[in-house]
């Protein structure tokens, strides 16, 4: 939440405005939960935001946050990388079902755009992860972090730069900031999949997007930037990873959906394939 408000302040400053107060997302959330009328379109309409929230929380649960800490390695186990990649997509599918039941034609357009973009985002991401799995010979995030300990030159960033570049480019899409925010931008075909969502439903969606962003930033920190051995390191690193996408977002205008799909399938995918070929 703090991240998203900071991001919007930065965007405002870049365009010469003062921007929202830093606590604005919390006020919005309180207001959304306090609305008096709610309507539903059916069971799946309820479950959509819940599934999405589960995707975010699930990712968080199975991710080792702090290296070497028993408590904060959460429920990570030897194959957690695959599970987390699945959770990343899971929320999207739940959202698609829920928004579909809303029955609004704009939701349907939003869903088709969102799913097609997210599928192509997953391609370089998965290629990078496969490359890492070959490099470190494991699918456990904790083991990958362990292998990166011992100085900055042991980070995947330097030992496997191609995979890092491919994954960081796909991260731009996963966070959904400017060049790739067509799906949910308020001024595109009204706001995409959550057209019909309001009140508490929208509140749950917003809560989730905050959780999901932190979880994704933590995943990238673990995979490519040597993990974190204490909270301070964790916060600094996740913030920097997050702001990579924010800074790119403030500079570049929005892509159309066919442009972004082609973009993801071009350079990030080629780099990802190179990253795998090196280790074959």
């Amino acid at each position: 939440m703090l991240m998203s408000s900071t991001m919007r302040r930065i965007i405002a400053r870049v365009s010469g405005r003062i921007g929202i107060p830093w606590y604005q997302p919390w006020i919005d959330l309180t207001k959304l939960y306090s609305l008096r009328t709610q309507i539903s379109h059916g069971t799946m309409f309820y479950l959509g935001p819940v599934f999405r929230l589960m995707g975010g929380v699930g990712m968080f649960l199975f991710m080792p946050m702090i290296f070497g800490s028993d408590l904060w390695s959460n429920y990570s186990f030897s194959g957690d990388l695959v599970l987390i990649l699945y959770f990343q997509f899971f929320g999207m599918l739940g959202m698609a079902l829920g928004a579909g039941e809303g029955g609004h034609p704009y939701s349907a357009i939003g869903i088709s755009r969102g799913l097609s973009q997210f599928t192509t985002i997953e391609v370089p991401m998965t290629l990078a992860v496969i490359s890492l799995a070959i490099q470190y010979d494991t699918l456990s995030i904790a083991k990958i972090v362990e292998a990166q300990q011992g100085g900055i030159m042991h980070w995947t960033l330097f030992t496997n730069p191609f995979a890092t570049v491919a994954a960081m480019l796909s991260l731009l899409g996963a966070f959904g900031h400017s060049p790739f925010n067509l799906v949910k931008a308020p001024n595109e075909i009204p706001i995409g999949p959550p057209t019909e969502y309001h009140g508490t439903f929208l509140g749950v969606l917003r809560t989730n997007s905050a959780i999901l962003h932190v979880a994704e930033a933590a995943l990238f920190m673990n995979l490519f930037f040597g993990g974190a051995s204490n909270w301070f390191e964790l916060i600094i690193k996740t913030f920097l990873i997050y702001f990579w996408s924010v800074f790119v977002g403030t500079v570049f205008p929005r892509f159309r959906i066919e442009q972004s799909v082609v973009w993801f399938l071009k350079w990030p995918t080629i780099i990802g394939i190179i990253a795998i070929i090196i280790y074959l």
Partner: protein
Amino acid sequence: MEREFDKAIKEMYKEKFLAPENEVRQVSAPDGSIIEIDPLKDYFCQERPKEHKPRKGVVEDFLNWARAESLWVLGFGTGCGSIEIPPLVTPRFDMYRYGVQMRPTPRQSNVFIISGYLSVKTLKRAIRSYEQMPSPKYIIALGSCTINGGMYWDSYNTINRLDHYMPVDVYIAGCMPRPEALLAGFGKLKELIKSGQGEKANEYARNFDWYKANQKKIIRDWNMPDYNW
């Protein structure tokens, strides 16, 4: 005599203006049986709006504070005043500072700015949008056209007093008011909400019949449900 004439006109309009997708029709269900669908009854919620009692004491105060500090405006421009809204997001006025944001869909917005004259055709759309907004909801009426018709007061096709058709929280007079006036209006609305007076959605529910009668008097081709969620 006159009443009968009105009735006949209404029947005629009903037949003439009922959109094809809203006509009663036969549809075959997935299991093969034929069912009859009346879209006006089946696809829309015909329930009347309900009054929602505010919570008590500090809780309501806190919620009102949150509602006041997070005003989401429906991006619906009517009349000439809608040109005054875009400058609000520019660096010069920057309404984001005050927690005012634009939302593209009525489901997610709380504030409806009627920005100028409302033609009868637009009034219909404005009512539908207003009723779809989740309560508590507020209306800001911009410009003198919404107060007494302004320069359109004797026009054949615009309404004169907005508060006969929708409950208005804040009026901003002028032709046209500048964006600063609009910001001041937002400030006034915030004061009202924080002091617990932003209950116009309940008033709309309470005087629903009166509002509907007024609306139907002016909208001749009423081809939608009485209350459309």
